[in-house]
């Protein structure tokens, strides 16, 4: 008797008798296909986002909240009134947020970015924890270094204007730091680099080390003075940035997307439809509005 090879999808049903094996195969033809249309799916998704946004901003988990309250009360009891809990500021998807830190330094958080600092900031330390992308304008204080701790990088400064881009679960951009004015020292687990005016550094995808470049080189995009700057970036990267910035879905359906490069700047307050229209006109592309986003095509 020749052994019939078993279909690989019976992952655990080994040694099935031949008649049952046959039944398994026959039943496979009964797999239900499409039960909802694309339109129903989009409709359901829109309604889910609607329900999510209707509800008040979600609270932190109650245990953490209770812990914060307990810790603050305890601390306040010993030291009198002070800002004694860890401050956290969050810019939700599609929004930016400007924050002034207790030492007078200002930070602009890009969409989906979180920053926090522990009590006594500006008195005993100037450490901030960042997950995401933010521009800093740091007040000079030679006695107290200003340090940005982000998931993969550490940036130490004395007084300067710079930007850190480093998401914990970043899928869109390479972690990096760029300096507009002054100097900073950037390090990760492998390397340390000193950066001066108009220089930037990225984590090298292959070596995991740090590679420094000067501003204006290709594939450079940044957020500064309320504008998003792009220097010769690919159209995919451009729209990935836009998707992330506006929290919307942009599908690029082009035959040769690498042929389209983008340079220029946009106000972060501009509407997505304005930008899409603009790019489509300049590049001779067409676009179509879909639920929660756009399709870009030739």
């Amino acid at each position: 008797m020749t052994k019939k090879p078993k279909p690989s999808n019976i992952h655990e049903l080994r040694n099935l008798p031949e008649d049952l094996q046959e039944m398994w195969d026959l039943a496979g033809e009964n797999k239900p296909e499409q039960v909802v249309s694309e339109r129903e799916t989009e409709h359901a998704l829109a309604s889910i986002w609607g329900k999510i946004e209707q509800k008040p901003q979600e609270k932190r988990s109650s245990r953490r909240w209770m812990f914060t309250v307990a810790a603050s009360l305890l601390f306040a009891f010993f030291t009198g009134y002070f800002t004694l809990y860890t401050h956290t500021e969050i810019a939700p998807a599609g929004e930016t947020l400007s924050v002034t830190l207790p030492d007078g330094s200002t930070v602009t958080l890009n969409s989906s970015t979180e920053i926090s600092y522990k009590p006594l900031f500006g008195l005993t330390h100037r450490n901030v924890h960042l997950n995401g992308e933010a521009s800093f304008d740091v007040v000079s204080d030679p006695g107290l270094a200003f340090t940005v701790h982000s998931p993969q990088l550490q940036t130490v400064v004395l007084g300067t204007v710079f930007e850190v881009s480093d998401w914990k679960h970043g899928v869109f951009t390479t972690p990096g730091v760029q300096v507009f004015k002054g100097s900073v020292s950037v390090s990760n687990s492998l390397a340390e680099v000193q950066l001066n005016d108009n220089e930037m550094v990225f984590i090298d995808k292959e070596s995991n080390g740090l590679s420094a470049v000067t501003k204006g080189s290709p594939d450079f995009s940044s957020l500064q003075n309320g504008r998003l700057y792009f220097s010769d970036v690919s159209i995919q990267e451009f729209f990935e940035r836009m998707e992330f910035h506006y929290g919307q879905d942009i599908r690029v359906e082009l035959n040769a997307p690498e042929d389209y490069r983008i340079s220029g700047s946009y106000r972060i307050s501009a509407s997505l439809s304005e930008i899409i229209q603009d790019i489509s006109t300049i590049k001779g592309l067409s676009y179509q509005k879909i639920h929660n986003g756009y399709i870009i095509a030739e």
Partner: protein
Amino acid sequence: MQIVVMNKIKIQTYAKEIKAGNRLAFSSFFRENYNRYMAFALRYLDSKADATDILQDVFVKLWEKREDLDVTKSLDSYLYTSIRNRCLNFIRDHSNKYSTIEDDIVDENSVSALEEDSEQLIHSLIQNLPDRQKEAFQLSRFDGLQHDEIAEIMDVSARTVNNHIVAALKTLRANFEKYKQQSALV
């Protein structure tokens, strides 16, 4: 198998992104999998409107509780479990609308003699399997889930899952033969 494994890795990548608050990942995950979850809910409920409501609640809750997601566990099993529990609760609370789950009562006569092709026939035979056997069988055959995942969803042991599936296949085989003989006689 390759496809199933790829999907699992992909779903877990989505789980991480959703946990991190990535809205696009949530939307993409929803678009790619809504049909599958709807087909699953419709195995319990007759009304698509009711199934739609239940899926809405499950996905709203997924987003709201995203920070508590355990990404080391299967997001797929988590969703199947939530959908199943809500469907069963719904049936319990609307027992006038739905007949209750009756575990081992099979009406073999309900397979109509007019069932023409074997595909149609097998469909009816699957529908007439005892509920637990049917559930385990469909999750394994149509959703490509592993025994341990099905065990988690149905809240039984993996061995029981295996027994259910083998029993389902035996029942299907026996009824299939019986029907073939009958129709040959006609």
